[in-house]
């Protein structure tokens, strides 16, 4: 049993302690925007925020978390898809198959929260998620665009 705060809601989840956060989110909470890609923290498709930090949920057991830690998934990033990154993603038509994009956006959102004006080198160093369709250059451009459009908050 785990008690978690997901997207601002505290939920009790009946799972074994070693269940990865990813599978609790997908199978018990029913939020499927967070994806399974590798299960070993390599690909980043499962990236969520834990207290604002980009976290690979496939390798984070629920026992490592409690209700005081704020977990945010792609569904909770903004109420209506209006996060500057989401707007930039749409403006630049970033996704191809789209499977990795939730994780990409969550990784990028954590980067911008910590570093509102990242350089290209910052982005390339920090965003280590795998995309097999090959959206990297548009991801990079969209992060730059979102950062540029976010100056008032920067």
């Amino acid at each position: 049993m785990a008690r978690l705060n997901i997207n601002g809601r505290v939920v009790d989840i009946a799972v074994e302690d070693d269940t990865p956060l990813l599978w609790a989110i997908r199978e018990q909470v029913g939020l499927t925007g967070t994806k399974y890609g590798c299960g070993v923290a390599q690909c980043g498709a499962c990236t969520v925020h834990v207290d604002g930090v980009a976290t690979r949920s496939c390798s984070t057991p629920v026992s490592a978390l409690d209700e005081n830690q704020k977990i945010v998934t792609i569904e909770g990033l903004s109420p209506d898809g209006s996060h500057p990154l989401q707007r930039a993603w749409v403006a630049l038509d970033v996704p191809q198959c789209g499977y990795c994009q939730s994780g990409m956006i969550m990784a990028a959102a954590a980067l911008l929260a910590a570093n509102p004006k990242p350089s290209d080198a910052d982005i390339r160093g920090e965003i280590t998620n795998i995309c097999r369709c090959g959206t990297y250059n548009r991801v990079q451009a969209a992060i730059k665009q979102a950062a540029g459009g976010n100056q008032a908050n920067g």
Partner: protein
Amino acid sequence: MNQIASLNRRGFLQVSAALGAFTLGIRVPEAVAQGAAQGAASPEVNAWVVVKPDDSIIIRIARSEMGQGTLTGLAQLVAEELNADWSKVSTEYPTPGQNLARNRAWGNMSTGGSRGIRESHDVVRKGGAAARMMLVEAAARGWGVPVSECRAANSTITHQPSGRTTTYGKVAEAAARLTPPTDMPLRDPKDWTIAGKPLPRLDTVDKTNGKQIYGADLTLPGMLNAAIRDCPVFGGKVASFDAAKVAGMPGVKKVVQVGETAVAVIADTWWRAKTALDALPITWDNGPNAQVSSASIAEVLKAGLEAPEAAIGNRAGDARAAIASAAKRVEAVYGYPFQNHATMEPMNATALWTPERCEVWTPTQNGEAALAAASEAAGLPPAKCEVYKIHLGGGFGRRGAVHDWVRQAVEIAKQMPGTPVKLLWSREEDMLHGRYHPITQCKLTGALDAAGNLTGLAMRISGQSIVAGIFPQNIRDGRDPVVFQGLSPGGEEGAFGYAIPNILIDHAMRNPHVPPGFWRGVNLNQNAVYVECFMDELAHAAGRDPLEFRRALLKNSPKHLAVLNAVAERGGWGQPAPEGRARGLAQIMGFGSYVAACAEVSVSPAGELTIHKITAATDPGHAVNPQQIAAQVEGSFVYGLSAALHGECTVAEGRIEQENFDTYPVMRMAEMPAVEAILMPSGGFWGGVGEPTIAVAAPAVLNAIFAATGKRVRQLPLKHADLRRA
């Protein structure tokens, strides 16, 4: 709105009741099941076009969307001829079962070989044109005026003499009752207003907010989950397993054997199924291939390089004689490894089986092939089966020709009659049971005369045939024509551009036990490495500039030459490169398009490679969506460079050694070069864009590495090469 009303079947009603068809991402054609639209609330004007009373338009797409943008591109072609208001257009998939029931009204559903647009442009444009003609005719009849006085634009029909107007939505029901036209003149692409434009994709928003549903995300009421392990050694099978050991684990419902080779655990959740599977004692009978290794496969291929028997792909003059009398002879052997598609979403399918009916929900590149696989596994005729295509988390060829995961899902569901079961492969299962990029070696021998002209070329490919592995019935006289992609003497698919008086390109088929598959770019990938790197070697041996050397040989191939010239010019060929950088070129034709690349790289004294920039040119004939073509070209380099830099599956004791991204690395953002995509559609033909440029990525980079270091890398992937300067 109710997309499922006409499909009066349990599975769909459940899906609808639980989640709503739209949130599932499954849109089942509402009029499809009836075969016609009489009296329907939302008339099907024809198989391709549904117009609703509110003027919204649904365009049916037979091919699968896996990221390549075909939903948008094909819809643009229909909408162009339909004179549709693009802002009102959405898309849906007809099901394979309905295609079957309606005498294949939507034609081929296979989505591979960069054929989505190039193979169906004609039929979808005619579908759009026919629907427009019927809508106009319906309006004209309603007004009692000649059709010739009416014009359609932007989903509105105008009677020109009187200025009266109506909309598609208002006349769609009447249009649907008309006899379809048989002669549908199509617009000249130069007059396009919707097609040919860099329109945004129709499917982007849901991919930015987590709403897009993939096969792995599917949930049906009462559904159970399965995790599977197939014998890691190809050709092996299950000897025994001890189900009692895991029967009491949390959530476990059943442990089942799947065919002769696999075992699955069915549980309430996938994580519990996988946890129990990991704990399940399984003994394998590893079968006849348990001693095969990468080294033993390499020996077999090496022998094929010298074998007397080979199937000929391209022959002119007498290459052997030219080589024997050459002033200078150049020889090199190249090799290309097994590679996994590694789609981000592992293979999965959800199946619901009863003795009367079998339904499967799965991401597939070929719904009809998935239906055939489901039918066979279910032991039911195709008419009693159905496949619902779910959005793909990557395809790249893995989800096309072979539906092994669908068979497994159905075989599992058969052991839980009446209960939907979702089978999801772990990444490890996906890596161990791929349909791998074929392994080949290639020996090339070139003959140069005293003036440095190329007078002869012999090219012996030894290794695996995808066709022999998947469609053996298509092998004729031991010859697999697909092996020669990009090397053929002519044809629309991939013509060899170089004019060489004496040429012999042949293939000694050597098929290891590792199953091959169509892998984005297919055989063009290694063929481009072999030819284009060797062209560089020949130019070097002849003391010629690699661009000039190629230009002379491409004098009879103006389209090949044009893309090569374009990348040379934009890539700065012939001008000094920035300090420490060097450039390489490659060109080839494949999948109906002409492509070339100029790569700019640097190599540090420690041997570390940086790919700074790739300039790529594509002539696909007609360009349906330029910004999507640019996205495909950028993406193709991630796929192609991942393969060139890292991609390798090795074999030990009959099985693949790499099980996840830690041992099968792929390119990440930090390695990604800048890409400049030059689109130069010359018109008059329809080429593919999803694959061709993959092939020029590796040779352009390898040639640039030679220019930077003087080192020829002839065995991929590059991660094994020592690039420190000698």
